[in-house]
């Protein structure tokens, strides 16, 4: 059981880093929308529109790391099997 939990914790760490990286490696806060600039050729103004997109930030990454550390910690309290 301890071994399985530790493997799960390690896989969780890897999955969190890979997911965070694939979704933009955003070093800011988690976002649920992303700004996109639209150019108006008549006025030469740039407008801003927001597209719905989930971009995990370091807050979510830190949460996932804490969760995995918790699982690892719990595993230490269990017997070897």
């Amino acid at each position, binding site marked *: 059981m301890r071994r399985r939990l530790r493997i799960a914790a390690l896989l969780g760490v890897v999955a969190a880093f890979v997911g965070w990286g694939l979704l933009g490696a955003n*070093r*800011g*806060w*988690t*976002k*649920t*929308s*992303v*700004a996109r600039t*639209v150019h*108006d050729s*008549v*006025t*030469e*103004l*740039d*407008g*801003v*529109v*927001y597209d719905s997109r989930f*971009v995990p*930030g*370091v807050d979510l990454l830190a949460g996932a790391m804490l969760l995995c550390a918790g699982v690892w910690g719990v595993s230490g309290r269990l017997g070897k099997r």
Partner: protein
Amino acid sequence: MVKQALIFGWLLCGAAAFGGSQNFDFKDPKGVNNVVFKTDAPLESINGTATEVSGAVQFDPADPGAVKGKLMVAAASLHVPNPLMKEHLQGPMWLDVAKYPSITFEVVSAAKVVTKENSTTAEVTGNLTIKEVTKKVTVPVKFTYLEGKLKDRVPSLKGDLLVLRGKFAVKRSDFGINAGKGEDKVADEIELTLSLAGQSPR
């Protein structure tokens, strides 16, 4: 009497056709108008945009210094990409958009007016009202008058466009926006960038 009224009407039409102040409506049918706000915070700067702009500006291309008008921004249209941050921004501690739905700027005067071709730069002083607190602010503004260009933007209409660009900063503490609190998390100074176009159909 009828003759006098006709002459007066003709003079008014003449003034509108050959000069004088034009009324520009800043409710943008294209949805490009925006006010970007930016403030510093520890992890990353907070960038957001307000898009629901309305109001009108009276602008005379022959006398840009006489500009007058009032612009409104719907406070509920302020958007930041983080949903929790947006909830806080619009909530009672910060902008309280349910109680104070509008942010307004009313032009009082313009100074240091410099016109070159169709562009005018000026320092526009006006009353900025946020959460019912009004402060006089001076904004460096660039006006660009685009004569006859409305049809290029809205094909069903003929008329002129007035583009307004400006950048200035305000202190949130001046307007009672969570004043004196959380400055270690969100800076007191907020930078505002205006990118607006108004239309004056003929």
